[in-house]
Protein backbone atom coordinates (compact mmCIF):
# COMPACT_ATOMS: atom_id res chain seq x y z
CA UNK A 1 0.00 0.00 0.00
CA UNK A 2 2.60 2.52 1.04
CA UNK A 3 4.78 1.67 -1.96
CA UNK A 4 1.89 2.29 -4.32
CA UNK A 5 0.96 5.67 -2.84
CA UNK A 6 4.59 6.78 -2.79
CA UNK A 7 5.08 5.63 -6.40
CA UNK A 8 1.97 7.63 -7.34
CA UNK A 9 3.27 10.77 -5.60
CA UNK A 10 6.76 10.54 -7.03
CA UNK A 11 5.45 9.99 -10.57
CA UNK A 12 2.98 12.86 -10.25
CA UNK A 13 5.71 15.15 -8.92
CA UNK A 14 7.96 14.25 -11.87
CA UNK A 15 5.22 14.52 -14.47
CA UNK A 16 3.91 17.90 -13.29
CA UNK A 17 7.23 19.57 -12.57
CA UNK A 18 7.67 20.96 -16.07
CA UNK A 19 4.43 22.89 -15.78
CA UNK A 20 4.48 23.73 -12.03
CA UNK A 21 8.17 23.81 -10.97
CA UNK A 22 7.02 22.87 -7.46
CA UNK A 23 9.95 20.56 -6.67
CA UNK A 24 13.66 21.34 -6.58
CA UNK A 25 14.55 17.72 -5.85
CA UNK A 26 12.50 14.55 -6.25
CA UNK A 27 14.03 11.54 -4.53
CA UNK A 28 12.43 8.69 -6.48
CA UNK A 29 14.90 6.04 -5.47
CA UNK A 30 15.17 6.97 -1.80
CA UNK A 31 11.43 7.38 -1.41
CA UNK A 32 10.60 4.03 -2.98
CA UNK A 33 13.28 2.27 -0.97
CA UNK A 34 11.93 3.74 2.21
CA UNK A 35 8.32 2.96 1.29
CA UNK A 36 9.34 -0.66 0.84
CA UNK A 37 11.13 -0.70 4.20
CA UNK A 38 8.11 0.79 5.94
CA UNK A 39 5.84 -1.72 4.24
CA UNK A 40 8.05 -4.71 5.06
CA UNK A 41 8.49 -3.67 8.67
CA UNK A 42 4.73 -3.64 9.03
CA UNK A 43 5.18 -0.37 10.88
CA UNK A 44 1.91 1.06 12.04
CA UNK A 45 3.20 4.52 13.00
CA UNK A 46 0.60 7.23 12.63
CA UNK A 47 1.91 8.21 9.19
CA UNK A 48 3.16 4.84 7.91
CA UNK A 49 3.86 5.10 4.19
CA UNK A 50 2.35 8.57 3.79
CA UNK A 51 4.21 10.56 1.11
CA UNK A 52 5.16 14.05 2.26
CA UNK A 53 6.85 16.97 0.50
CA UNK A 54 9.14 19.31 2.44
CA UNK A 55 10.00 22.94 1.79
CA UNK A 56 13.61 23.35 0.76
CA UNK A 57 14.56 25.32 3.88
CA UNK A 58 13.99 22.36 6.22
CA UNK A 59 16.91 19.95 6.58
CA UNK A 60 16.46 16.36 5.46
CA UNK A 61 19.65 14.33 5.77
CA UNK A 62 21.22 13.60 2.39
CA UNK A 63 18.74 15.65 0.39
CA UNK A 64 19.47 19.15 -0.85
CA UNK A 65 18.54 22.19 1.23
CA UNK A 66 19.01 25.17 -1.05
CA UNK A 67 16.44 27.53 0.52
CA UNK A 68 15.77 28.54 -3.09
CA UNK A 69 19.18 30.24 -3.09
CA UNK A 70 22.32 29.98 -5.15
CA UNK A 71 24.37 30.57 -2.02
CA UNK A 72 23.43 27.12 -0.70
CA UNK A 73 22.95 25.46 -4.08
CA UNK A 74 22.94 21.72 -3.60
CA UNK A 75 24.00 21.86 0.05
CA UNK A 76 23.16 18.53 1.70
CA UNK A 77 22.77 18.77 5.47
CA UNK A 78 24.32 16.01 7.59
CA UNK A 79 21.32 15.88 9.94
CA UNK A 80 17.53 15.90 10.01
CA UNK A 81 15.42 18.73 11.36
CA UNK A 82 13.53 17.60 14.46
CA UNK A 83 10.19 17.83 12.63
CA UNK A 84 11.64 15.52 9.94
CA UNK A 85 13.00 13.08 12.50
CA UNK A 86 9.53 12.88 14.03
CA UNK A 87 7.81 12.39 10.67
CA UNK A 88 10.22 9.59 9.81
CA UNK A 89 9.71 7.93 13.19
CA UNK A 90 5.98 7.93 12.46
CA UNK A 91 6.62 6.11 9.17
CA UNK A 92 6.28 9.02 6.73
CA UNK A 93 8.14 9.01 3.42
CA UNK A 94 9.77 12.26 2.24
CA UNK A 95 9.45 12.33 -1.54
CA UNK A 96 11.24 15.58 -2.26
CA UNK A 97 12.11 19.18 -1.51
CA UNK A 98 9.83 21.95 -2.67
CA UNK A 99 10.64 25.24 -4.32
CA UNK A 100 10.27 28.45 -2.31
CA UNK A 101 11.15 32.12 -2.28
CA UNK A 102 14.83 32.53 -1.47
CA UNK A 103 15.31 32.08 2.30
CA UNK A 104 11.50 32.18 2.61
CA UNK A 105 11.46 35.88 1.69
CA UNK A 106 8.54 36.58 -0.58
CA UNK A 107 4.82 36.30 -1.16
CA UNK A 108 4.78 35.01 -4.74
CA UNK A 109 7.58 32.44 -5.06
CA UNK A 110 9.14 34.64 -7.72
CA UNK A 111 12.23 35.16 -5.55
CA UNK A 112 13.43 31.58 -5.97
CA UNK A 113 16.81 31.37 -7.70
CA UNK A 114 15.42 28.32 -9.50
CA UNK A 115 12.42 29.96 -11.16
CA UNK A 116 8.92 30.59 -9.84
CA UNK A 117 6.41 27.92 -8.93
CA UNK A 118 3.20 28.15 -10.96
CA UNK A 119 -0.29 28.07 -9.53
CA UNK A 120 -2.05 24.82 -10.54
CA UNK A 121 -5.35 26.73 -10.90
CA UNK A 122 -3.84 29.03 -13.52
CA UNK A 123 -0.22 28.58 -14.48
CA UNK A 124 0.12 32.24 -15.49
CA UNK A 125 -0.40 33.14 -11.83
CA UNK A 126 1.68 32.91 -8.67
CA UNK A 127 1.01 30.21 -6.05
CA UNK A 128 1.79 32.67 -3.26
CA UNK A 129 4.82 32.40 -1.07
CA UNK A 130 7.09 31.76 0.32
CA UNK A 131 6.13 28.07 0.65
CA UNK A 132 4.65 28.08 -2.87
CA UNK A 133 6.04 24.70 -3.88
CA UNK A 134 4.57 22.93 -0.86
CA UNK A 135 1.16 24.58 -1.35
CA UNK A 136 1.19 23.66 -5.02
CA UNK A 137 2.26 20.05 -4.36
CA UNK A 138 -0.76 19.59 -2.09
CA UNK A 139 -3.19 21.56 -4.28
CA UNK A 140 -2.19 19.60 -7.40
CA UNK A 141 -2.82 16.31 -5.61
CA UNK A 142 0.84 15.24 -5.69
CA UNK A 143 1.00 14.68 -1.93
CA UNK A 144 -1.69 14.75 0.77
CA UNK A 145 0.53 16.74 3.13
CA UNK A 146 3.53 19.07 2.93
CA UNK A 147 5.62 21.06 5.35
CA UNK A 148 6.36 24.74 4.96
CA UNK A 149 7.59 27.54 7.17
CA UNK A 150 5.62 30.62 8.16
CA UNK A 151 7.40 33.81 9.22
CA UNK A 152 4.80 36.34 8.08
CA UNK A 153 2.21 34.20 6.31
CA UNK A 154 4.38 31.93 4.19
CA UNK A 155 2.17 28.89 4.84
CA UNK A 156 -1.26 30.52 5.13
CA UNK A 157 -1.05 32.88 2.14
CA UNK A 158 0.01 30.25 -0.45
CA UNK A 159 -2.51 27.83 1.09
CA UNK A 160 -5.19 30.43 0.40
CA UNK A 161 -4.00 31.16 -3.15
CA UNK A 162 -3.85 27.44 -3.96
CA UNK A 163 -7.10 26.33 -2.30
CA UNK A 164 -5.72 24.11 0.49
CA UNK A 165 -5.53 24.20 4.28
CA UNK A 166 -2.46 25.83 5.82
CA UNK A 167 -1.63 26.00 9.52
CA UNK A 168 0.90 28.13 11.35
CA UNK A 169 1.08 26.84 14.90
CA UNK A 170 1.71 28.84 18.08
CA UNK A 171 5.30 30.07 18.41
CA UNK A 172 7.14 27.31 20.28
CA UNK A 173 4.70 24.55 19.31
CA UNK A 174 7.13 23.04 16.77
CA UNK A 175 10.87 22.78 16.82
CA UNK A 176 12.84 25.08 14.54
CA UNK A 177 15.94 22.89 14.81
CA UNK A 178 16.94 22.20 11.21
CA UNK A 179 14.73 24.95 9.79
CA UNK A 180 17.09 27.46 8.18
CA UNK A 181 16.55 30.64 10.20
CA UNK A 182 15.02 33.73 8.59
CA UNK A 183 13.56 35.68 11.54
CA UNK A 184 13.94 33.57 14.65
CA UNK A 185 11.30 35.27 16.80
CA UNK A 186 8.67 34.78 14.05
CA UNK A 187 9.59 31.55 12.21
CA UNK A 188 7.46 28.46 12.75
CA UNK A 189 7.15 25.23 10.77
CA UNK A 190 3.65 24.85 9.35
CA UNK A 191 1.60 22.20 7.58
CA UNK A 192 -0.40 22.08 4.32
CA UNK A 193 -3.15 19.53 3.67
CA UNK A 194 -6.39 19.07 1.76
CA UNK A 195 -8.13 17.42 4.72
CA UNK A 196 -8.32 18.67 8.29
CA UNK A 197 -7.74 15.09 9.54
CA UNK A 198 -4.35 14.98 7.80
CA UNK A 199 -3.42 18.38 9.19
CA UNK A 200 -4.35 17.26 12.71
CA UNK A 201 -2.42 13.99 12.45
CA UNK A 202 0.76 15.58 11.11
CA UNK A 203 0.69 18.39 13.66
CA UNK A 204 0.30 15.81 16.43
CA UNK A 205 3.43 14.04 15.18
CA UNK A 206 5.74 17.04 14.74
CA UNK A 207 4.66 19.20 17.71
CA UNK A 208 6.24 19.33 21.13
CA UNK A 209 9.26 20.26 23.16
CA UNK A 210 12.68 19.71 21.64
CA UNK A 211 15.90 20.03 23.65
CA UNK A 212 17.59 21.23 20.43
CA UNK A 213 15.36 24.32 20.29
CA UNK A 214 15.12 26.31 23.49
CA UNK A 215 12.12 28.24 22.17
CA UNK A 216 9.90 25.15 22.08
CA UNK A 217 7.54 25.25 25.04
CA UNK A 218 6.84 22.54 27.54
CA UNK A 219 3.15 22.33 26.70
CA UNK A 220 1.46 18.92 26.30
CA UNK A 221 0.56 17.92 22.74
CA UNK A 222 -3.13 17.03 22.62
CA UNK A 223 -4.79 14.57 20.24
CA UNK A 224 -5.66 17.10 17.56
CA UNK A 225 -7.92 14.66 15.69
CA UNK A 226 -10.19 14.55 18.76
CA UNK A 227 -11.04 18.19 18.10
CA UNK A 228 -12.67 17.37 14.76
CA UNK A 229 -16.13 16.68 16.14
CA UNK A 230 -18.07 19.19 14.05
CA UNK A 231 -19.88 20.62 17.04
CA UNK A 232 -19.64 24.40 16.79
CA UNK A 233 -22.53 25.28 19.07
CA UNK A 234 -21.57 28.04 21.44
CA UNK A 235 -18.24 28.79 19.75
CA UNK A 236 -17.57 32.52 19.79
CA UNK A 237 -16.01 33.91 16.63
CA UNK A 238 -14.64 37.44 16.60
CA UNK A 239 -15.35 39.59 13.55
CA UNK A 240 -12.95 42.56 13.09
CA UNK A 241 -15.07 44.82 10.87
CA UNK A 242 -12.27 47.33 10.27
CA UNK A 243 -10.13 44.70 8.53
CA UNK A 244 -12.77 44.29 5.85
CA UNK A 245 -12.20 47.69 4.29
CA UNK A 246 -9.65 49.37 2.07
CA UNK A 247 -7.43 47.19 -0.09
CA UNK A 248 -9.60 44.09 0.21
CA UNK A 249 -10.77 42.55 -3.06
CA UNK A 250 -14.56 42.69 -3.20
CA UNK A 251 -15.02 39.02 -4.07
CA UNK A 252 -12.74 37.97 -1.23
CA UNK A 253 -14.60 40.21 1.22
CA UNK A 254 -17.96 38.83 0.16
CA UNK A 255 -16.73 35.23 0.32
CA UNK A 256 -15.34 35.60 3.84
CA UNK A 257 -18.45 37.40 5.06
CA UNK A 258 -20.55 34.50 3.82
CA UNK A 259 -18.31 32.17 5.85
CA UNK A 260 -19.36 34.21 8.89
CA UNK A 261 -23.00 33.51 7.96
CA UNK A 262 -22.26 29.79 7.72
CA UNK A 263 -20.72 29.83 11.19
CA UNK A 264 -23.78 31.59 12.51
CA UNK A 265 -26.00 28.89 10.95
CA UNK A 266 -23.84 26.23 12.57
CA UNK A 267 -24.57 27.65 16.00
CA UNK A 268 -21.55 29.85 16.57
CA UNK A 269 -21.93 33.26 18.11
CA UNK A 270 -20.37 36.14 16.14
CA UNK A 271 -18.95 38.95 18.24
CA UNK A 272 -17.43 42.21 17.11
CA UNK A 273 -13.77 42.68 17.99
CA UNK A 274 -11.32 45.51 17.54
CA UNK A 275 -7.66 45.17 16.61
CA UNK A 276 -6.78 48.86 16.65
CA UNK A 277 -3.08 48.44 15.85
CA UNK A 278 -3.37 45.77 13.14
CA UNK A 279 -2.84 48.41 10.46
CA UNK A 280 0.72 48.91 11.72
CA UNK A 281 1.63 45.23 11.47
CA UNK A 282 3.36 45.38 8.09
CA UNK A 283 5.57 48.25 9.23
CA UNK A 284 6.49 46.42 12.43
CA UNK A 285 7.07 43.18 10.57
CA UNK A 286 9.40 44.62 7.95
CA UNK A 287 11.57 46.14 10.65
CA UNK A 288 11.74 43.12 12.97
CA UNK A 289 11.91 40.44 10.28
CA UNK A 290 14.61 42.21 8.27
CA UNK A 291 16.64 43.05 11.39
CA UNK A 292 16.63 39.40 12.45
CA UNK A 293 17.32 38.26 8.89
CA UNK A 294 20.32 40.55 8.50
CA UNK A 295 21.82 38.89 11.54
CA UNK A 296 20.79 35.29 10.72
CA UNK A 297 22.04 35.49 7.14
CA UNK A 298 25.46 36.71 8.21
CA UNK A 299 26.42 33.02 8.44
CA UNK A 300 26.39 32.65 4.66
CA UNK A 301 29.91 33.77 3.97
CA UNK A 302 31.43 31.07 1.78
CA UNK A 303 33.46 29.46 4.56
CA UNK A 304 31.67 26.42 6.00
CA UNK A 305 29.15 25.36 3.36
CA UNK A 306 27.57 26.32 0.08
CA UNK A 307 28.87 28.62 -2.60
CA UNK A 308 32.15 30.53 -2.52
CA UNK A 309 32.99 33.18 -5.12
CA UNK A 310 36.17 32.73 -7.10
CA UNK A 311 38.90 35.27 -7.72
CA UNK A 312 38.78 36.84 -4.28
CA UNK A 313 42.29 36.61 -2.86
CA UNK A 314 41.48 38.41 0.41
CA UNK A 315 39.03 37.25 3.12
CA UNK A 316 36.67 40.22 3.35
CA UNK A 317 36.61 40.51 -0.39
CA UNK A 318 35.65 36.81 -0.53
CA UNK A 319 32.75 37.39 1.92
CA UNK A 320 31.44 40.33 -0.11
CA UNK A 321 31.78 38.67 -3.47
CA UNK A 322 30.26 35.41 -2.27
CA UNK A 323 27.25 37.19 -0.80
CA UNK A 324 26.94 39.51 -3.76
CA UNK A 325 26.89 36.63 -6.25
CA UNK A 326 25.08 34.16 -4.01
CA UNK A 327 22.06 36.16 -2.82
CA UNK A 328 19.19 37.37 -4.99
CA UNK A 329 17.76 40.90 -5.07
CA UNK A 330 15.03 40.50 -2.43
CA UNK A 331 17.35 38.86 0.08
CA UNK A 332 19.89 41.64 -0.40
CA UNK A 333 17.15 44.25 -0.07
CA UNK A 334 16.05 42.77 3.25
CA UNK A 335 19.58 42.36 4.57
CA UNK A 336 20.17 46.01 3.66
CA UNK A 337 16.97 47.17 5.32
CA UNK A 338 17.68 45.10 8.43
CA UNK A 339 21.22 46.40 8.64
CA UNK A 340 19.94 49.95 8.20
CA UNK A 341 17.32 49.76 10.98
CA UNK A 342 19.87 48.23 13.36
CA UNK A 343 22.69 50.63 12.53
CA UNK A 344 24.04 53.21 14.95
CA UNK A 345 21.67 56.12 15.43
CA UNK A 346 18.63 54.33 14.00
CA UNK A 347 18.19 51.45 16.43
CA UNK A 348 15.81 53.21 18.82
CA UNK A 349 13.88 55.01 16.08
CA UNK A 350 13.13 51.85 14.14
CA UNK A 351 13.92 48.59 15.89
CA UNK A 352 12.94 49.49 19.43
CA UNK A 353 9.88 51.35 18.20
CA UNK A 354 8.81 48.27 16.23
CA UNK A 355 9.27 46.05 19.28
CA UNK A 356 7.03 48.39 21.27
CA UNK A 357 4.31 48.35 18.63
CA UNK A 358 4.68 44.57 18.54
CA UNK A 359 3.65 44.63 22.21
CA UNK A 360 0.60 46.72 21.32
CA UNK A 361 -0.42 44.28 18.59
CA UNK A 362 0.03 41.33 20.94
CA UNK A 363 -2.06 43.08 23.61
CA UNK A 364 -4.83 43.80 21.07
CA UNK A 365 -5.16 40.06 20.48
CA UNK A 366 -5.04 39.12 24.16
CA UNK A 367 -7.83 41.60 24.79
CA UNK A 368 -9.91 40.44 21.82
CA UNK A 369 -9.61 36.81 22.94
CA UNK A 370 -11.26 37.69 26.25
CA UNK A 371 -14.50 37.79 24.28
CA UNK A 372 -14.04 35.15 21.58
CA UNK A 373 -12.43 31.78 20.87
CA UNK A 374 -11.09 32.75 17.45
CA UNK A 375 -11.04 35.68 15.03
CA UNK A 376 -11.95 35.42 11.36
CA UNK A 377 -10.25 37.44 8.62
CA UNK A 378 -9.42 36.99 4.95
CA UNK A 379 -6.06 35.21 4.53
CA UNK A 380 -4.95 37.26 1.54
CA UNK A 381 -6.44 40.54 0.29
CA UNK A 382 -6.74 39.15 -3.25
CA UNK A 383 -6.80 35.79 -5.05
CA UNK A 384 -3.65 34.71 -6.90
CA UNK A 385 -2.14 37.54 -8.94
CA UNK A 386 -0.27 37.27 -12.24
CA UNK A 387 3.39 36.29 -12.41
CA UNK A 388 5.43 39.47 -12.78
CA UNK A 389 2.62 41.75 -11.63
CA UNK A 390 4.30 42.98 -8.44
CA UNK A 391 7.97 42.10 -8.86
CA UNK A 392 9.13 45.68 -9.33
CA UNK A 393 7.31 47.09 -6.32
CA UNK A 394 8.55 45.50 -3.09
CA UNK A 395 6.16 47.47 -0.89
CA UNK A 396 3.10 46.36 -2.89
CA UNK A 397 4.35 42.80 -2.53
CA UNK A 398 4.74 43.20 1.25
CA UNK A 399 1.13 44.35 1.56
CA UNK A 400 -0.02 40.85 0.52
CA UNK A 401 0.84 39.83 4.08
CA UNK A 402 -1.43 42.37 5.77
CA UNK A 403 -3.75 39.74 7.30
CA UNK A 404 -1.12 37.15 8.16
CA UNK A 405 1.85 38.93 9.76
CA UNK A 406 -0.06 39.80 12.94
CA UNK A 407 -0.13 36.13 14.02
CA UNK A 408 3.66 35.87 13.80
CA UNK A 409 4.15 39.14 15.67
CA UNK A 410 1.79 38.00 18.44
CA UNK A 411 3.00 34.37 18.39
CA UNK A 412 -0.53 33.04 18.01
CA UNK A 413 -1.65 30.22 15.68
CA UNK A 414 -3.45 30.81 12.39
CA UNK A 415 -5.26 28.51 9.99
CA UNK A 416 -6.19 29.26 6.38
CA UNK A 417 -9.24 27.40 5.07
CA UNK A 418 -10.45 27.35 1.45
CA UNK A 419 -13.94 28.80 1.02
CA UNK A 420 -14.69 28.93 -2.67
CA UNK A 421 -13.56 30.23 -6.02
CA UNK A 422 -13.56 33.72 -7.50
CA UNK A 423 -15.30 34.48 -10.80
CA UNK A 424 -11.94 33.76 -12.49
CA UNK A 425 -11.95 30.33 -10.81
CA UNK A 426 -9.18 31.16 -8.37
CA UNK A 427 -9.32 29.92 -4.78
CA UNK A 428 -10.30 32.20 -1.91
CA UNK A 429 -9.35 31.42 1.67
CA UNK A 430 -10.30 32.69 5.09
CA UNK A 431 -8.13 32.78 8.17
CA UNK A 432 -8.88 31.79 11.74
CA UNK A 433 -6.63 33.22 14.44
CA UNK A 434 -6.75 31.92 18.01
CA UNK A 435 -5.11 32.37 21.40
CA UNK A 436 -1.82 30.62 22.24
CA UNK A 437 -2.10 26.82 21.96
CA UNK A 438 -5.61 26.99 20.48
CA UNK A 439 -4.77 24.73 17.50
CA UNK A 440 -7.57 22.32 18.54
CA UNK A 441 -10.10 25.17 18.38
CA UNK A 442 -8.86 26.33 14.97
CA UNK A 443 -8.94 22.78 13.59
CA UNK A 444 -12.41 22.24 15.04
CA UNK A 445 -13.71 25.45 13.46
CA UNK A 446 -12.01 24.78 10.13
CA UNK A 447 -13.30 21.23 10.06
CA UNK A 448 -16.82 22.29 11.03
CA UNK A 449 -16.91 24.79 8.19
CA UNK A 450 -15.62 22.30 5.60
CA UNK A 451 -18.18 19.72 6.71
CA UNK A 452 -20.92 22.24 6.06
CA UNK A 453 -19.35 23.65 2.87
CA UNK A 454 -16.91 21.07 1.46
CA UNK A 455 -14.31 22.49 -0.89
CA UNK A 456 -14.40 19.86 -3.62
CA UNK A 457 -13.19 21.84 -6.65
CA UNK A 458 -9.88 20.70 -8.08
CA UNK A 459 -7.43 22.71 -10.20
CA UNK A 460 -7.06 21.99 -13.93
CA UNK A 461 -3.56 20.68 -13.25
CA UNK A 462 -4.25 17.79 -10.89
CA UNK A 463 -2.60 14.43 -10.37
Amino acid at each position, binding site marked *: MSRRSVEFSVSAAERLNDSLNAFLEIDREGALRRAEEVEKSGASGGLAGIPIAVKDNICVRGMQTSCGSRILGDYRPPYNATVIERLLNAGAVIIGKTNCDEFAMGSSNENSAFGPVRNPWDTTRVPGGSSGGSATAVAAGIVPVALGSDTGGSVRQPASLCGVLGLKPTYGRNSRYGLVAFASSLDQVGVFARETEDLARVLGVIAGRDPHDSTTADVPVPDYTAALDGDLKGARIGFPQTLFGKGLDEEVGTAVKSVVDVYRELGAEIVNVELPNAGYAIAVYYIIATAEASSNLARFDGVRY*GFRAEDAPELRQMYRKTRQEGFGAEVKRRIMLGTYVLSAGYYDAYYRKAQQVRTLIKNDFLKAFENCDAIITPTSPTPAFALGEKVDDPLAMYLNDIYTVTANLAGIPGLSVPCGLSSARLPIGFQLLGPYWSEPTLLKLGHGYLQARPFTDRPPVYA
Partner: protein
Amino acid sequence: MPITEADIAKVAQLAHLELGDEELKTFVPQITGIVNYVEQLNELDTANVEPAIGGLTPEGEKTDSSRPDEAAGSLGQKVALAEAPDPASGHFRVPKVL
Protein backbone atom coordinates in the same frame (compact mmCIF):
# COMPACT_ATOMS: atom_id res chain seq x y z
CA MET B 1 16.39 62.82 6.17
CA PRO B 2 16.64 61.52 2.60
CA ILE B 3 18.55 58.31 2.02
CA THR B 4 21.44 58.82 -0.41
CA GLU B 5 23.50 56.48 -2.53
CA ALA B 6 26.35 57.01 -0.08
CA ASP B 7 24.12 55.83 2.80
CA ILE B 8 23.18 52.69 0.92
CA ALA B 9 26.82 52.03 0.01
CA LYS B 10 27.73 52.37 3.69
CA VAL B 11 25.02 49.93 4.75
CA ALA B 12 26.13 47.49 2.05
CA GLN B 13 29.62 47.61 3.48
CA LEU B 14 28.31 46.88 6.99
CA ALA B 15 26.32 43.95 5.59
CA HIS B 16 29.27 42.52 3.64
CA LEU B 17 27.58 43.04 0.30
CA GLU B 18 29.35 44.37 -2.77
CA LEU B 19 26.51 46.04 -4.65
CA GLY B 20 26.90 46.96 -8.29
CA ASP B 21 26.10 50.46 -9.54
CA GLU B 22 22.78 49.32 -10.99
CA GLU B 23 21.72 47.69 -7.74
CA LEU B 24 22.74 50.75 -5.77
CA LYS B 25 20.56 52.92 -8.01
CA THR B 26 17.56 50.58 -7.66
CA PHE B 27 17.89 50.18 -3.91
CA VAL B 28 17.94 53.91 -3.09
CA PRO B 29 14.31 54.61 -4.06
CA GLN B 30 13.10 51.18 -2.93
CA ILE B 31 14.62 51.36 0.53
CA THR B 32 13.56 55.00 0.82
CA GLY B 33 9.98 53.93 0.03
CA ILE B 34 9.99 51.17 2.62
CA VAL B 35 11.61 53.35 5.29
CA ASN B 36 9.03 56.09 4.64
CA TYR B 37 6.30 53.50 4.97
CA VAL B 38 7.54 52.12 8.30
CA GLU B 39 7.82 55.64 9.70
CA GLN B 40 4.03 55.60 10.12
CA LEU B 41 4.85 53.93 13.47
CA ASN B 42 5.76 57.40 14.72
CA GLU B 43 2.03 58.17 14.83
CA LEU B 44 1.84 55.97 17.92
CA ASP B 45 2.82 57.11 21.39
CA THR B 46 4.82 54.23 22.82
CA ALA B 47 6.54 56.09 25.65
CA ASN B 48 5.29 53.68 28.29
CA VAL B 49 5.21 50.48 26.25
CA GLU B 50 7.60 47.65 26.99
CA PRO B 51 9.33 46.37 23.84
CA ALA B 52 8.47 42.78 22.89
CA ILE B 53 11.74 40.89 22.85
CA GLY B 54 11.74 37.52 21.14
CA GLY B 55 8.55 35.68 20.36
CA LEU B 56 8.00 33.47 23.40
CA THR B 57 4.54 32.81 24.79
CA PRO B 58 4.08 32.91 28.59
CA GLU B 59 4.41 29.10 28.60
CA GLY B 60 7.56 29.34 26.51
CA GLU B 61 9.01 31.82 29.01
CA LYS B 62 8.38 29.36 31.81
CA THR B 63 9.99 26.42 30.03
CA ASP B 64 13.33 25.50 31.55
CA SER B 65 15.82 25.07 28.72
CA SER B 66 18.84 24.21 30.82
CA ARG B 67 20.41 20.77 30.63
CA PRO B 68 23.17 18.99 32.52
CA ASP B 69 26.61 20.19 31.45
CA GLU B 70 27.64 16.88 29.93
CA ALA B 71 29.49 16.18 26.72
CA ALA B 72 27.34 14.66 23.99
CA GLY B 73 28.07 13.26 20.55
CA SER B 74 28.80 15.62 17.66
CA LEU B 75 29.05 15.38 13.91
CA GLY B 76 32.79 14.84 13.92
CA GLN B 77 35.38 16.60 11.79
CA LYS B 78 34.88 14.62 8.58
CA VAL B 79 31.12 15.15 8.37
CA ALA B 80 31.32 18.77 9.50
CA LEU B 81 33.81 19.53 6.73
CA ALA B 82 32.03 17.56 4.04
CA GLU B 83 30.10 20.55 2.67
CA ALA B 84 32.90 23.11 3.00
CA PRO B 85 33.93 24.85 -0.23
CA ASP B 86 37.63 24.51 0.60
CA PRO B 87 38.49 22.10 3.43
CA ALA B 88 42.16 21.44 4.16
CA SER B 89 43.89 19.32 6.77
CA GLY B 90 40.84 19.15 9.02
CA HIS B 91 40.13 22.87 8.79
CA PHE B 92 38.06 25.36 6.82
CA ARG B 93 40.58 27.08 4.55
CA VAL B 94 39.96 30.75 3.73
CA PRO B 95 41.80 33.33 1.64
CA LYS B 96 44.44 35.37 3.42
CA VAL B 97 43.14 37.62 6.17
CA LEU B 98 45.80 40.31 6.07
